[in-house]
């Protein structure tokens, strides 16, 4: 696992073949509706070849690159979360019989996914969800069933996006663990090639199937240099020092009211977040009343129904809902799961229709807190 291999661009296709041969369905980045989304991919040609993305608060644009990079962009609105924790999923179907109520065996086999082009922040997000759903005392067996058989092809970020701040969250731009293969794309005069490291025995096996050679020390140094550059080129940053105490200690900060005035409570941030795990259930029955099913679907703390108990919603104001989301993500998550709920992917900033920026809100609360201390 310590050695780094080099696979030339023309041989990269064989990765898909090697995964297919092992029964994996490859899913990863592809262009649809002027956006890079994650979907089923068959070949290299399905990747967003030669595309890059420009991201800012409330802004996302795809533009052509000057080169034919396969991974020359960061992340779009989708995250790999949708494959392990599907947006809609039938939990069970029941049937009324003369003896009572019977569980209808769904018998659906779990797809065996290979995640292609998983960014380090996404890998971190997956490991956070592993804790949320798999740490107990209660487990999400559906998530674990899918998760167990995932093959991860991580791609390190040699370029960063305008809303990225993984360095602040300690999740990137290089994947350190949790992958089967980790890929760094190298372009330039020496040719289009990929530095690949195996992170698991299965990864080694797959790598062995691809025509490859050992990396030269210059190539490894090039990759390191690119990743170092990326580390210093994040579009955003977030000071995480004492963030839990900062947010928990400021529930009445006037900034919450201000952000509440901007926030449309559209739920976009929670839908694009790779760690948000809230879900609700919908119970329905057939018209003849003979069968019933329960579907689980993603939910968002930005809706009024989310906190509804008889008598009304407990968080009627947008300010309270934003505070709940951000305080959960950056503070109470640490109490609950021993890790921040934020990986610094910046999706919530990019996909917010009014451009609310979590890093700016955190900085504003910190600034006034520091001012308070300075005055005291």
């Amino acid at each position: 696992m310590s050695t780094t291999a080099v696979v030339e661009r023309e041989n990269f296709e064989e990765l898909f073949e090697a995964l297919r041969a092992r029964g994996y369905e490859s899913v990863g980045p592809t262009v649809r509706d002027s956006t890079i989304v994650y979907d089923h991919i068959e070949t290299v040609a399905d990747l967003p070849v030669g595309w890059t993305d420009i991201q800012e608060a409330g802004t996302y644009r795809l533009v052509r690159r000057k080169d034919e990079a396969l991974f020359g962009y960061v992340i779009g609105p989708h995250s790999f979360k949708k494959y392990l924790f599907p947006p809609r999923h039938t939990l069970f179907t029941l049937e009324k019989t003369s003896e009572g109520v019977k569980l209808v065996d769904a018998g659906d086999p779990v797809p065996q996914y290979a995640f292609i082009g998983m960014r380090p922040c996404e890998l971190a997000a997956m490991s956070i969800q592993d804790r949320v759903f798999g740490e107990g005392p209660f487990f999400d067996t559906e998530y674990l069933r899918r998760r167990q058989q995932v093959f991860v092809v991580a791609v390190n970020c040699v370029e960063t996006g305008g809303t990225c701040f993984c360095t602040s969250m300690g999740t990137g731009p290089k994947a350190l663990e949790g992958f089967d293969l980790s890929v760094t794309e190298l372009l330039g005069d020496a040719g289009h090639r990929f530095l690949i490291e195996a992170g698991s025995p299965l990864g080694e096996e797959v790598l062995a199937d691809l025509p490859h050679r050992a990396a030269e020390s210059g190539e490894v140094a090039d990759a390191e240099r690119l990743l170092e550059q990326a580390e210093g080129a994040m579009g955003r940053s977030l000071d995480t020092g004492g963030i839990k105490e900062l947010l928990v200690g400021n529930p009445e900060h006037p900034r919450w009211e201000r952000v509440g005035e901007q926030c449309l409570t559209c739920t976009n941030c929670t839908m694009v977040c790779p760690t948000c795990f809230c879900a609700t259930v919908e119970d329905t029955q057939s018209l003849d009343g003979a069968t019933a099913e329960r579907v689980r679907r993603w939910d968002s703390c930005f809706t009024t129904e989310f906190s509804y108990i008889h008598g009304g919603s407990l968080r009627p104001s947008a300010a309270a809902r934003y505070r709940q989301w951000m305080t959960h993500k950056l503070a109470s998550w640490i109490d609950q799961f021993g890790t921040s709920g934020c990986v610094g992917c910046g999706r919530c900033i990019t996909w917010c229709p009014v451009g609310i920026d979590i890093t700016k809100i955190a900085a504003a609360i910190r600034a006034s807190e520091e001012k308070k201390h300075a005055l005291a």
Partner: protein
Amino acid sequence: MVPRFMPVLDVWDDTDDTFTVELDPGPAGFSFRPGQFNMLYVFGLGEVPISISGDPATSGRLLHTIRGVGPVTSAMRDLAKGDLVGVRGPFGVPWPVGLASSRDVVFVAGGIGLAPLRPALYHVLNHREEYERVSLLYGVRSPHDLLFEDEVTEWRGRFDMAVRVTVDTADRKWRGSVGVVTKLIPRAPFDPHNAVAFICGPEIMMQFAAEELAKSGVRAGRIHLSMERNMKCGIGLCGHCQFGKDFICKDGPVFTYEALHSRLDVREV
């Protein structure tokens, strides 16, 4: 995540809007600890969290006392003997009845809050010798809303228990106290330095009752309250019931006032 179905043994009205459903858990029984709740499911309609209101020592009949407020609870009122109800549970952190032994126990109930407290009351009364003075302070909106009236009357007749009832609005026949339940606290028979309190009712009532008990000298760590939030899964995975860092369903619903105190003061947590 799949409920276990149990037949309804009986359904009866407790008050105008509150009723009790008695389920048959089968020969294996259903063991639970006082203060725990179940997710109850009506076929095809939905699932709601309901505290268990029966005696934990009687595992052969499972009681839930329910107020009809939404589509699922309203449908439950129409249940008849033999109908099947889906049950998932028991969930949640119970009332720490063990912690209360050798101490004075103060139960403070508001409205239907008496239902989640009743299993703890049964436990304490079943093991009466393990506890010092026991009191129940019960507040309801009007005399019509008195829950478990026969039982409360019976408890009032006991020599080893103090029962005080107050109503917000009295009618002409009412001869008891009028006012909020917190007013009963200063006159209740307990030693604040050796008392444990269990409070259940509307959140604002619990907050004021806990404050009053704390003011009288009961340690915040010995005042317990049972919180209510929207719950979908009951096992800390759906996120709905979060109250600050806690999932009410799995870290609660029973918490100490000490743990909740700072959050109860903040609006819309």
